[in-house]
C-alpha cells in the first residue's frame, strides 16, 4: 500500500469535491450539534441532581450525657466507615439555636420549655457511591448499634421519592441520548454514503486500471473520518459560542434550582463526541464503499 499516494489522493479528492464535502460536513455538524446540545442539557440537569443528592444526610442523635471522650470515639468510629464522606458534630445548643432561627417569628413557642430538649448529633454526608436506599438503610442499621447512639434518622420516605425520580431521569437521559446518537449515526452514514456514491464512476475507473480494493479504501476512509471529525469539532465550536452567549441568561434560573452553576461539556465529553464522530465516519465509509466496489 502506497500510503503517501493514498494521502495525496485523499487531499486531491477533498479539494476537487469541495462543495459536496462542505455540504456533508454541514449536515453532519448539524447532527452533532443536536447531540452536543442534548449532552450539555443532560450534563447540567445531572449536576443539579448531583447537588440535591449531596443533601442526602444521615443524622445520628447521641444519647444524653454522652461524655466528650465517648463522643470522640464514636465520631472516629463513624468517620472510618467507607460510606462517610463528611461529618459534622452539632451540639445540642447549636441545634437549639438553629431551630430558633428556623421558627423565626414563632420562636416564642420555645419559651415554654424549661430546658433544651434537642440532643447533640453527628450530621453525615454520604459518599456518592452509597447514596442509595439499600446502602443507607444498611449503614443506619449498623450505626444504630454503636455505643452512644440514641437514634439514626435519614428521611426514608423523602429519600425514596427523590431516588426514584433520579432513576427515571437517568433512564430518560440514556434513552433519549441513545436515540439521538443512533439518528446522528444514521445521518452520518448516509452523508458519507452520498460522497462515495458521487464517486462510484471514479472508483470503477480506478478499478479498471488495476487498483485493488484496499488501495482505494484508504482515501475514502480518510475522507469519511475527516468529514465526521471536522463536523464534530465545528459543532462543538458552534455550541460553545451559543454557550457563551446564553450562559448568563441561564445561570440565574439554574442557581435558583440548586447551588450548582451551569457548566460546558468537559474535555472527556468533548473527546467522546469527536471520537464517536471518527468511529461513525470510518463505519459509514467502510459500509458504503463496500457497496460500490462491485465493478
Amino acid at each position, binding site marked *: 500500500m502506497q500510503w503517501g499516494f493514498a494521502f495525496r489522493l485523499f487531499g486531491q479528492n477533498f479539494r476537487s469535491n469541495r462543495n459536496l464535502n462542505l455540504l456533508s460536513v454541514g449536515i453532519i455538524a448539524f447532527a452533532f450539534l443536536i447531540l452536543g446540545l442534548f449532552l450539555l442539557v443532560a450534563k447540567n440537569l445531572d449536576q443539579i441532581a448531583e447537588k440535591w443528592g449531596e443533601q442526602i444526610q444521615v443524622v445520628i442523635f447521641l444519647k444524653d450525657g454522652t461524655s466528650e471522650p465517648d463522643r470522640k470515639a464514636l465520631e472516629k468510629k463513624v468517620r472510618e466507615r467507607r460510606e462517610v464522606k463528611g461529618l459534622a458534630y452539632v451540639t445540642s445548643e447549636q441545634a437549639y439555636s438553629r431551630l430558633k432561627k428556623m421558627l423565626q417569628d414563632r420562636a416564642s413557642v420555645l419559651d415554654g420549655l424549661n430546658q433544651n430538649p434537642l440532643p447533640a448529633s453527628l450530621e453525615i454526608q454520604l459518599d456518592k457511591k452509597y447514596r442509595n436506599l439499600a446502602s443507607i438503610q444498611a449503614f443506619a442499621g449498623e450505626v444504630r448499634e454503636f455505643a452512644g447512639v440514641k437514634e439514626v434518622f435519614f428521611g426514608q420516605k423523602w429519600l425514596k421519592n427523590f431516588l426514584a425520580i433520579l432513576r427515571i431521569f437517568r433512564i430518560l437521559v440514556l434513552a433519549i441520548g441513545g436515540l439521538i446518537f443512533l439518528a446522528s449515526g444514521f445521518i452520518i452514514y448516509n452523508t458519507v454514503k452520498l460522497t462515495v456514491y458521487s464517486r462510484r464512476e*471514479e472508483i470503477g475507473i480506478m478499478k479498471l486500471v488495476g487498483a485493488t480494493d484496499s488501495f482505494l479504501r484508504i482515501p475514502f476512509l480518510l475522507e469519511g473520518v475527516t468529514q465526521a471529525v471536522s463536523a464534530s469539532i465545528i459543532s462543538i465550536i458552534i455550541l460553545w459560542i451559543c454557550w457563551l452567549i446564553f450562559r448568563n441568561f441561564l445561570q440565574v434560573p439554574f442557581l435558583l434550582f440548586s447551588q450548582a452553576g451551569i457548566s460546558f461539556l468537559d474535555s472527556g465529553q468533548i473527546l467522546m463526541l469527536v471520537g464517536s464522530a471518527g468511529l461513525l465516519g470510518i463505519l459509514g465509509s467502510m459500509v458504503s464503499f463496500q457497496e460500490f466496489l462491485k465493478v
Partner: protein
Amino acid sequence: MIELYHVAKTYQRDITALSEINVKIRKGEFVYITGPSGAGKTTLLKLLFAAETPSSGQILIGGKNVSRIRPREIPFLRRQLGVVFQDFKLINHWTVFQNVAFVLEILGFPRKDIRRRVLQTLKRVQLNHRVESFPQKLSGGEQQRVAIARALINDPKILLADEPTGNLDPDITQEIMTFFLEINDRGTTILFATHDRSLIQAYPKRVISLKRGSLITDSEESSGGFELGRT
C-alpha cells in the same frame, strides 16, 4: 497469447450475449472484433479484463486461466492489460498528468520515475503540451489520446480497445488509428472492437466477426493462416 475455448456468456438464464466462442490470438497480432450493436464485442472484451466471468468455457491469457480468476487477483490481471474505451473513462477532476500517472502510483513507482515516464508517454501521444489540463478542456481526440497514454504507460503486452474511435470524427480517427498501428508495430497485441467497416477496409488486419453472440467469420481462418476452434 489469448485463447478462448467454447466460451459462452448468458445473462439472467435466457439472454445469450456470447456462445461457443473459440479463438486464438498470437503475440503481436492486431485483431479487429467487429459486428453490429449487440453482437457481443464489448462482452468479449469485458471477459478478457475480468469485468465479467464467462458462464462456460475457458479463457487463457498468457497461459493464465482468467475464467477461474479469484476476485483479489483481478487487479493484477488488469495491470498487465491496457484498456481503452469509447467514452474514454477519464477522471474529470484530475489533470491529464494525474490520470496517466495513477497507473504507476498503484504499482508503487517512485515519484521521480512516474514523472519521467508519464511525460515520455504523453509526448508519444503528442500531448506533452496538455500535461496540466483537465480532460473536459480537451477535444475528443485528445481525451482518447490521454486514455491511450494511460493504457500504454505500463507497457502492457495486450491492449484492448472498445470502439475507441466511436466518438471521434474521421480526421481524429485516422490519427488514433496511426497510434494503434505504431503501438502494434512495437510488439503489443491489440484487440480492437469496432463496428466501423470503413476503418477495417482502410487498415486491413485480421477480423473476427460476431453476430448475436456467435462468431460468424474469422479472416485468419478463411485465409488458412491459423486453425481456429480445432482444439
